[in-house]
Structure formats: structure tokens, C-alpha cells
């Protein structure tokens, strides 16, 4: 798995005093402020990446509390209004035998967001501790969170669709609850946390320990 298999170290952009543009990939001098090709601001993601990621992560943890404790929707059935929470909905579906749907909602609304928050926190901590271990796996984990994280929005869409469609007057009505917005905001903030995280920091130690890669 080692990239140093051929016996010589590869230069990094930082060592060569250049940086890549995140918008168009063009290579510029490390001190350049704007990309010559596309005009994008080259603010060097190195700066404040970890702080920004932490800020978004903490926001998402705070939002996750109302998202789970408040009702995500209200079901009005023959005059009785019942509040439903995310977990309550999963339990109800499970008892009714809708195992696949219960599993989808559980994975999208509980497993994925919590997993994403844990992984990104661990990545931030390991960068702060300057840990050079398992860099390839960390990068892979980051990519998985980036791809999978958006799918948590499924639950928000389900509530939106049910609320928009189930308007059967006196028989049955479904209304969105406050948790739906908190949950949507939580998904957006975890996405912003992932975008803020600079994966190059995982590899940055290589600049100091050029030849001995401890993969």
C-alpha cells in the first residue's frame, strides 16, 4: 500500500511552494491570492480548516438534540393528534413489520448522522494530535462520509411528501413538526463540516517525515 515503494519520496505541493485551485485545479504559487485561470480566491484551506470543521460539528450536535426529541411530524387521525419523533417512527414501523423501511429511516436518520459526526471529530482530533497513522484509511473514511452524508435528507423528504400528500380532511392529516427543520439544518451543517475539513492536513506530516511512511 505504500506509495514509497519505488524508494524515493514524492514532493508535495507545499514542499514545492505551489497550491492547487479548489475550483479549477490549476496550479499557482503558494503565496498567490487569486487563481490565474478562474479567478477563484485561493484562501489556502490549511488556515482554520479544523476550527471551522469543529464549529460546524458542534452546531450539528446541538441541532441533533431537538431533531430527535421534538416531533418530526403530527398525525391527525379522526380528530386525534399524535406527535411522532424520528425514533418513535422507526419503532412503530418495526412493530408493524415494515422492516426495510424502518431500517432505511434508522440508517439515514440515526446511524449516518452520528457516524458522520464521530468520523469527522476523530479526523479533526487525529490531525490536531499530528497522528501519522492509517492516512489512507482516514482519507477513505472522509470520502465515505462525504458521499453518504447527503442521504440523511431522505427523512426530511419523506416528512415533506407525507405532509404534502396526506390531506384527507377529517380522516387523516399529516403536518410537519419542528424536528423536521432541525434535522434538515443538522444535515446541512454536517455537510458544511465535511466541506470545511481539509484532507491535506491528514497527509501534511509527510512533509516532515519524508522518507519513512508508516502506512
Amino acid at each position, binding site marked *: 500500500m505504500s506509495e514509497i515503494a519505488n524508494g524515493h519520496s514524492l514532493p508535495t505541493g507545499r*514542499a514545492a511552494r505551489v497550491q492547487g485551485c479548489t475550483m479549477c485545479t490549476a496550479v499557482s504559487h503558494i503565496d498567490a491570492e487569486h487563481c490565474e485561470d478562474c479567478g477563484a480566491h485561493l484562501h489556502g484551506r490549511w488556515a482554520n480548516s479544523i476550527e471551522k470543521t469543529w464549529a460546524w460539528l458542534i452546531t450539528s450536535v446541538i441541532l441533533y438534540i431537538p431533531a430527535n426529541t421534538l416531533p418530526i411530524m403530527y398525525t391527525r387521525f379522526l380528530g386525534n393528534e399524535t406527535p411522532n419523533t424520528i425514533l418513535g417512527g422507526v419503532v412503530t414501523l418495526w412493530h408493524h413489520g415494515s422492516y426495510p423501511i424502518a431500517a432505511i429511516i434508522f440508517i439515514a436518520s440515526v446511524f449516518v448522522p452520528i457516524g458522520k459526526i464521530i468520523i469527522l471529530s476523530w479526523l479533526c482530533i487525529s490531525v490536531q494530535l499530528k497522528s501519522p497513522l492509517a492516512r489512507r484509511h482516514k482519507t477513505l473514511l472522509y470520502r465515505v462520509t462525504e458521499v453518504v452524508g447527503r442521504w440523511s435528507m431522505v427523512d426530511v423528504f419523506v416528512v415533506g411528501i407525507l405532509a404534502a400528500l396526506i390531506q384527507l380532511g377529517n380522516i387523516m392529516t399529516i403536518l410537519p413538526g419542528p424536528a423536521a427543520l432541525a434535522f434538515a439544518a443538522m444535515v446541512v451543517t454536517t455537510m458544511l463540516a465535511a466541506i470545511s475539513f481539509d484532507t491535506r492536513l491528514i497527509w501534511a506530516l509527510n512533509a516532515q517525515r519524508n522518507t519513512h511512511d508508516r502506512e
Partner: protein
Amino acid sequence: MSQLEPSRMVCHECDLLVDVPLLKAHDKAFCPRCEYLLAANRPNATEKILAFSVTALTFLVLANSFAFISLSASGQEQTVTLIESVNVLFEQHVLLAGIVFATIIGVPASLLAGMGYVSISLRLSKRLPGTHRALRWSLHMLPWSMAEIFLIGILVSFIKIVALARVELGASFWAYVFFTVSLMLVILNIDRRELWRQVNAVSNV
């Protein structure tokens, strides 16, 4: 253009300096250290982006033109269009409706319009006014386009609703499915490096 010229790149994910060799049709270049996809030669990418953008936008119009879904339960029947259902949601919860509308219609539509505009510039070999802005906007919008997630949301909701009412899918539902497929095909053919290189290579109008 079947070949992509060699170029020097800095890996977006691990900062390795890489000399990307000449890429033939269907070739992809990955970072040798972290395996990030650096560049890909997708033949006729511009033409595909243009064709699928127009297709997707057409299907989006169709998805808003007919019945999306019909529900019937206890003698009551209800047929709604996509826009009507978003409107119902707007009356209940403005912010939530805003997020849903943006991620399933607004963002994908503006992304498609932007990519379509950029590919027209490239096809004409003339940089139309605002091409740079359109490309930058479209690339920024990429992570926030959630049409495919909405489709899964529809399927989950339907399985929930089937227990309560009879559900019939309208023509617009299928139009939305084709819209999503076309949108995915546009996104698959986007390569930042190549698009910016080509946009900078064509001259101003």
C-alpha cells in the same frame, strides 16, 4: 478532441504534486498516494453535458405539467401535481418547503441551466458573457442537488402511504425519474480541470 494533454496537478485531497500523463479516451488519472480521481477523459463530455442538460430541463417541465400522484381512501380522491404539493408544504412550514424546493428543483435546475450555457459556449467556440460565472455557480451547486435522494424519499413515503390509501403514480412522477437520470448523466460528465481548461481556451465573443 480524443486526448487530454499532460499537465501538472496538485492532488486536492493529499497535496501531492503529480504529473498527469496524456489521457486517452476513457482513461482516468488517480493520485498515486491517496487514490483521489484527479482527471478523467470522458469522450464528447461537452456534447453529452449539453444534450443531457436540455433533456433533463425538458423532463423537469413535464414533471411539473401533469399529475404527480393520486391518492384515494374511504371514498375521497386526491390528485396533486409536484408544484401543488410544494405549495401545500409552503402553507404548513415555509422554511422546510424552501429547503425541499431548493434541493429538488431550484438547485438542479440552475445547475443544469449553468452547465448547458457553458457547453453552448464551448460548442460555439465563443465565450458567451457570464460563462465563467455560470461554470463557477454550477460547480458550487453540485453537493446541494438532491433529486436522487428525493426519489428514494418518494419510494419510502409510498410504501408508508400504501398502508393507508390507494396510490397511483402519475405521468409527472415518471418524468421526474427521467429528469433525475438525465441530471446524473450530466454530473457524471463534469470534469473540473477539463471544463476550466476549455473555457479558458475559447476566445471572448
